[in-house]
């Protein structure tokens, strides 16, 4: 199995690399080159930081077109992590209004619940259903590490999508699974055994 971690200059790729190596992925590439991305079996889109800056970097590297071909045309499995989950939606209100990769009909907004501290930092429990491919063999309550101020909302018109939620002031989206696309708001690579199992599930079930 060949996995490519998309490198667009944002976020700690080291821990993801370490986790993939730990679960036994044979070949891990870190790249933004079309030739390497097209040869990989699976794609990981990581990311920490600002949505705007991330989209700028992605466009400057031509990654928006490369990823669109791989994900939307070739239907290659992709896992978005944290900002990576947000980047695959239509748009975000971070720094005004910015367009995303538009792989999934959703949008990104800042937490607007009452009486919560922002960013949402730490381990929190995710509620999922048994049709989920990402959480296979995991048992609730299942702790994952979150660190974010913005959250994704999926358009209610989207069907055949599997969603999981987390409670922070109110329910918000912890992950989505749609055809070849999977995305998590938390960091599996920083979530001990639960995270390693989830990464393994992505490798096996997508």
């Amino acid at each position, binding site marked *: 199995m060949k996995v490519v971690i998309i490198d667009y200059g*944002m976020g*700690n790729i*080291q*821990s993801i690399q*370490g*986790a993939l190596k*730990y679960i036994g992925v044979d070949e891990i590439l870190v790249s933004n080159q079309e030739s390497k991305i097209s040869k990989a079996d699976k794609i990981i889109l990581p990311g*920490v*930081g*600002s949505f705007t*800056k991330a989209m700028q970097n992605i466009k400057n590297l031509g990654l928006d077109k490369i990823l669109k071909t791989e994900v939307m045309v070739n239907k290659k499995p992709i896992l978005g992590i944290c*900002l990576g989950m947000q980047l695959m939606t239509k748009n975000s209100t971070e720094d005004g209004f910015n367009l995303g990769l538009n792989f999934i009909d959703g949008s990104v907004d800042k937490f607007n619940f009452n009486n919560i*501290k*922002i*960013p*949402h*930092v*730490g*381990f*929190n*429990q995710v509620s999922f259903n048994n049709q989920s491919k990402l959480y296979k063999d995991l*048992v609730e309550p299942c*702790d994952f*590490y979150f*660190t*974010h*101020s913005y959250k994704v909302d999926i358009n209610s018109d989207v069907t055949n999508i599997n969603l999981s939620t987390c*409670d*922070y002031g109110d329910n918000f989206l912890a992950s989505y699974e749609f055809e070849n696309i999977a995305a998590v708001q938390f*960091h599996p*690579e*920083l*979530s*001990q*055994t*639960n*995270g*390693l199992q989830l990464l393994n599930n992505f490798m096996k079930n997508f």
Partner: protein
Amino acid sequence: MLRKRIIFTLIYDSGFFNQSRNFRLQKVGNIKWLEKNYKFNEIAFSLDELIVLNASKENKNMLEFANNLTKLVHNVFIPVAAGGGIRTLEDAKLLFDSGADKIVLNTVLFTNTNLVKDLVKLYGSQSIIASIDYKKINDKNRVFVKNGTDELDIDLSEYINKVISLEIGEIYLNSINRDGTGFGYDLDIMEGISKNINIPVIIAGGAGNEEHLAQGLKIETVSAVATANLFNFIGDGLTKAKKILIQSNFNVTQWR
């Protein structure tokens, strides 16, 4: 429901990990010693987060620190924050590239707020922990920077508000009086300041046993408790402390 966190802080100085007492450092061992006595990939199951601070008082060799960080976090799958001596964007990048998921800023919060703003813009608020060292003098909490050597002419709660306005993600409040004593946290610290704080607060300084961790976790406005006490939590000390806290129904992570 969001869990409260238990954080272990490692104090690094020129190739060695240290026990700190009121900010005076005592060398304990190098990375080999640490691996032998603390096996972080195992002990990580009792921890929610690791913070590694370069507390070298003279020349902070960032490259050597970064190398040690990389070795330390190998096969550790919890969040790792690192800092101490970050003065430039390059310093921050080096630590992120060496395995840090977040960075810890202290002196630059006072001396170079532009750098802090740039780092927030580049890496996002959630990647930045603001570390604030304070000491109680004549019943007033005073702020210190530069490894606790320089006293600032500003009250702690006012300083906290200033730091929050820089849009950092978390605050790490470290009591210099309590540091390394094992006498327990400064439990009054959140009174008078907590109302202003809408970001997570980590308290540090003084924890010597699981009862102290419990006292800290009980404070509603505290998001996480940290300990840097290498001696009191050596071997399976942390594992045992965590077990007791879970048995006492504290809202902390449980790993299977």
